[in-house]
């Protein structure tokens, strides 16, 4: 099985260290979510994979071979970002043709289907498309390119809600038809929560969470109730953050002692992915309301 392995990848811009040692593995056939707050280096990491920039130290290996200046490896990786790197005076259809020429294949049938679904005129010049339609054009390429690893950096930027919904459906459809690895970096976590099967959280230049979505969701708990009871219940447990209001306390944890009987007056609820992300990337401590 193919895999993309990150070995202690660092990236320094002058004095500023954006990535401080990223270690993780993207395996074949997964839908990954790469989450992180603004400016933590998600885009930089993807650009390193796609060779648009270099890692300062460390390496990214595709099946054991470095991806740097490696066209064979890059032929299996595609990055869709907000940057419009196609010439503005060319048509959408030309982009499809040229992608086919460069990658050796292209899902023409799906591209035709997607242009119909999204009402995109393939004969339109890229420079004349609205922001949303530029995104759609790039997304169609990303879904139809024959690469094993497709990286989507903020893929729905500029898309309205119906088109976003449509895109997620089409992504699942193409993934079901031909499983390959999609890595989605987005801030619209709720929208991809049911889509992704594995979550990576990038914080402070490192991967701080690397877990299957299902097990993560199963572990994330919000414990609320009288402060003393909540503290007793969670004693000895690692708590991500607490919020107190009057005598009440809300605690967020991945390690709720489910085997311990819940004290009367204390509630235990699941956490959705967005809340989990917020708690995982927030400063550890107590918020007083």
């Amino acid at each position, binding site marked *: 099985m193919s895999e993309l392995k990150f070995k202690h990848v660092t990236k320094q811009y002058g004095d500023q260290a954006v990535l401080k040692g990223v270690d993780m593995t993207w395996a074949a056939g997964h839908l990954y979510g790469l989450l992180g707050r603004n400016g933590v280096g998600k885009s930089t990491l993807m650009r390193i994979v796609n*060779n648009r*920039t*270099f890692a300062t130290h460390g390496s990214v290996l595709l099946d054991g071979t470095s991806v740097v*200046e490696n066209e064979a490896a890059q*032929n299996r990786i595609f990055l869709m970002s907000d*940057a419009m*790197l196609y010439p503005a005076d060319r048509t959408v259809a030309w982009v499809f043709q040229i992608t086919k*020429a*460069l990658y050796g294949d292209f899902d023409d049938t799906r591209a035709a289907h997607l242009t119909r679904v999204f009402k995109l005129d393939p004969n339109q010049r890229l420079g004349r498309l609205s922001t949303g339609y530029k995104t759609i054009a790039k997304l169609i390429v990303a879904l139809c390119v024959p690469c094993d690893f497709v990286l989507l950096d903020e893929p729905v930027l500029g898309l309205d809600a119906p088109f976003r919904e449509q895109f997620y459906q089409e992504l699942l459809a193409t993934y079901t038809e031909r499983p390959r690895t999609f890595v989605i970096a987005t801030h619209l976590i709720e929208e991809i929560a049911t889509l992704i099967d594995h979550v990576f959280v990038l914080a402070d230049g490192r991967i701080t969470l690397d877990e299957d979505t299902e097990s993560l969701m199963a572990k994330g708990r919000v414990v609320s109730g009288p402060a003393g009871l909540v503290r007793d219940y969670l004693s000895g447990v690692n708590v991500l953050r607490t919020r107190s209001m009057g005598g009440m306390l809300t605690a967020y944890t991945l390690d709720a002692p489910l085997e311990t009987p819940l004290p009367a007056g204390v509630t235990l609820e699941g956490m959705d992915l967005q809340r989990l992300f917020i708690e995982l990337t927030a400063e550890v401590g107590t918020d007083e309301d």
Partner: protein
Amino acid sequence: MKTSATNRVMLGFFARFTGATLVGALVGILISAFLFPTMLGVGRYSLTDWLIGVMGLIIGAVSLSVTGFGFQNGISRRSMTRSLLLVFAGSSALCAVGVQLAYLIARLSGARVNGLLNAYAAGLHGVASVIGLLIWLVLLFGLMVAGGIATLIMNKKTKRAAFWWGLLTYVGIGVTIAVWSFVNDLAFQQGPVVMIRAVVGLGGGQPQPLLLLLWVSLLTALVTYAFTRMMARMEILG
């Protein structure tokens, strides 16, 4: 697969630039050799090669925009460099022929050829001068590469920084030329020519096309080396 497709795609891109340059060269001939002298009432000079030289720089600078497309499609810097140099070579060959034709037209029409290079090697622009063609080919190639280098230098700079660096360079060169011309009691446009001739051993008024070719080749080799090194480290945002 990627290499051949890359070359094909990039050559296609550059065909447009080359076509535009050739059209520009023809227009340049008409303007500089015929229109300006007639309008300004001065002697008939052909300064076409200045225009073509500037166009060479611009072609090189603009051509680098294609690298964005290359990065989007996983094309290696090595392949992009190779394709760019290949296109520069083709474009400069076509443009060099254009320059020779320009001189031919200028001479046949009785205009006085007052080009960029005949200051260094008088008599260089004789009809069907093979060495002249070679010099122009190498020079244009070097100019295109230099244009590419300029873009690479400005690549990581903000638009404001690029503007101020450009202005500073322009003023710096202008002041140097002006001071040199003043000190040597020369007309402004003669200053740099005399300065360079003195430095490279092409003074004395004797035609030395081989020495000129040597210098142009050396400089072009240097900028090409710098270009390939810079391309190898090129990064883009987005």
